[in-house]
């Protein structure tokens, strides 16, 4: 029996994104603790091998981070955003790491799973599978992970992943929930069939509807929202250009490039408008309220705010002072 306690807040929930592409490990720990102090109850942390661009410069190993985050926070519910079961991480290693994390932070961890990006898998030197094949791998991985969490001794001689009499010795009493990332109808249906929740990189009512129709009805729906708070609007836009130009890259391309240098070349060709398009910038809280409202209108229950750039303290203060009061009651 899966507990979804780690996913369910009280009404609309504002979450916080720990961007391990942009921040060093110690800074991420500080940000998580600061978020908790600012009253934020849930966070997600990126699971990357490499940052999107060279300028971002970081990419901590997420499972090491989670061990530290389990100790540095006391109430914050944290999930991976998202882990891919393609080449770099075999599902039995994911199941192992996630089970240990859940034991370290019971009821506070959730496993985000997705079909991955070539950026984080190409280093294994293997063929990059097409989306349909990766969806099949993801579906197989979810079943494998759940079987291991249930204490089964698992052997698989067919399918995408070989497993030889695997069994987890350190297991939580109640397994953590699995959040499946979805960007279109097929992955949303997979999330509805296999997941305990869905995560979208941007609000999309069709994704929510497909998730619900495929079995996700009543389950949490999470969405990421990229923002850049700063006292000065122009300064915020400069920070976006500097730190998160990859936000302007179409989803279909995002998964297909192999190196940060390739993303750097691509973003050079993007207009400023494209880069800023999906980001809420500046000091005006109404812009943030509007964006969160649009996400809720599309059917999402938790909105994870990703503050682009170094100023996390200022942003968390803004959430506490300006944003949360406007979104409650």
């Amino acid at each position, binding site marked *: 029996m899966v507990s979804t306690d780690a996913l369910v807040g009280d009404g609309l929930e504002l979450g916080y994104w720990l961007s391990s592409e942009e921040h060093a490990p110690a800074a991420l720990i500080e940000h998580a603790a600061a978020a908790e102090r600012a009253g934020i109850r849930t966070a997600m942390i990126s699971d990357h091998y490499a940052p999107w661009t060279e300028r971002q410069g970081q990419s901590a190993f997420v499972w090491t981070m989670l061990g530290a985050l389990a100790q540095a926070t006391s109430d914050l519910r944290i999930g991976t955003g998202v882990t891919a079961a393609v080449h770099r991480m075999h599902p039995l290693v994911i199941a192992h790491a996630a089970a240990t994390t859940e034991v370290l932070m019971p009821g506070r961890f959730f496993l985000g799973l997705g079909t991955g990006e070539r950026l984080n898998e190409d280093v294994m030197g293997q063929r990059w599978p097409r989306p349909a094949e990766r969806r099949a791998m993801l579906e197989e991985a979810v079943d494998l992970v759940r079987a291991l969490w249930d204490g089964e001794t698992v052997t698989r001689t067919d399918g995408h992943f070989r497993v030889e009499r695997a069994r987890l010795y350190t297991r939580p009493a109640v397994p953590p929930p699995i959040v499946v990332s979805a960007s279109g109808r097929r992955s949303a249906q997979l999330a509805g069939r296999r997941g305990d929740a869905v995560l979208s990189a941007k609000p999309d009512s069709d994704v929510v509807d*497909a998730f619900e129709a495929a079995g996700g009805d009543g389950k949490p729906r999470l969405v990421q929202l990229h923002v850049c708070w700063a006292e000065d609007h122009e300064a915020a836009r400069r920070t976006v250009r500097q730190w998160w130009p990859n936000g302007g890259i179409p989803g279909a391309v995002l998964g297909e490039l192999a190196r940060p240098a390739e993303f750097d070349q691509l973003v050079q060709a993007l207009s400023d408008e494209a880069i800023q398009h999906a980001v809420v910038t500046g000091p005006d809280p109404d812009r943030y309220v509007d964006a969160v*409202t649009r996400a809720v209108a599309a059917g999402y229950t938790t909105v994870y705010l990703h503050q682009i750039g170094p100023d996390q303290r200022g942003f968390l203060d803004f959430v506490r002072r300006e944003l949360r009061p406007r979104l409650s009651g």
Partner: protein
Amino acid sequence: MAEQCDTALARRLADDGAQIVEVLPAASYEPAHLPGAVNVPLKDMTLAVLAEREVLPDRPTVVYCYDHECDLSSRAAALLDALGYQEVYDYVASKTAWMAAGLPTEGTAPASERAGTLARPVPTCALDATVGELQDSFGDDDVCVVVDESQTVLGVVRRDVLTLPSTTSVLAAMQPAPPSVRPSITAAELARSMEKDGRSYVLVTTSLGRLMGVLVRSDLDGQH
């Protein structure tokens, strides 16, 4: 010279006693046709057949076929005109538009298997309402449909918006393009398309976008 007519005029002419003639083959006529329509397929349209089916030259006559892309009604109207019929109307948009407007039909295909009949009432609200005013509006439904005075669909709000501040406007919390189907679609077709497209619900609307009701997947259980 035959005149063209739209759905509203076709309806008025039918109410006023015009002869309604479907010019498609019998296989198309039998499952569903306009109420009181006589079937004279264009390929059989001779004075003898018209007389036998009591389609009289001195009464107003409305001819129709499948839809606006089908030219059979225009050719039939021209032929009737040439045959000396006095007042001929070509209902260009034809049976598809009639059914899409949610108007009744007769025939062997039971109306009970079409979306227009199966659609259930759904809560509605106005665009200028606030989220706080919707607290008791949803009942057992997960969506409330935003409509104007003519019941034209402007969008939907999901129950989830109740988590937003009560002063939030429906305009801000609305999803503007909910999925919709025409009342003429059969339950079996709809069940198949909802499964393929991953839809949990659809609104049933007329071709003018006016709300007739809602259907969720479970309303169509056993239809495919």
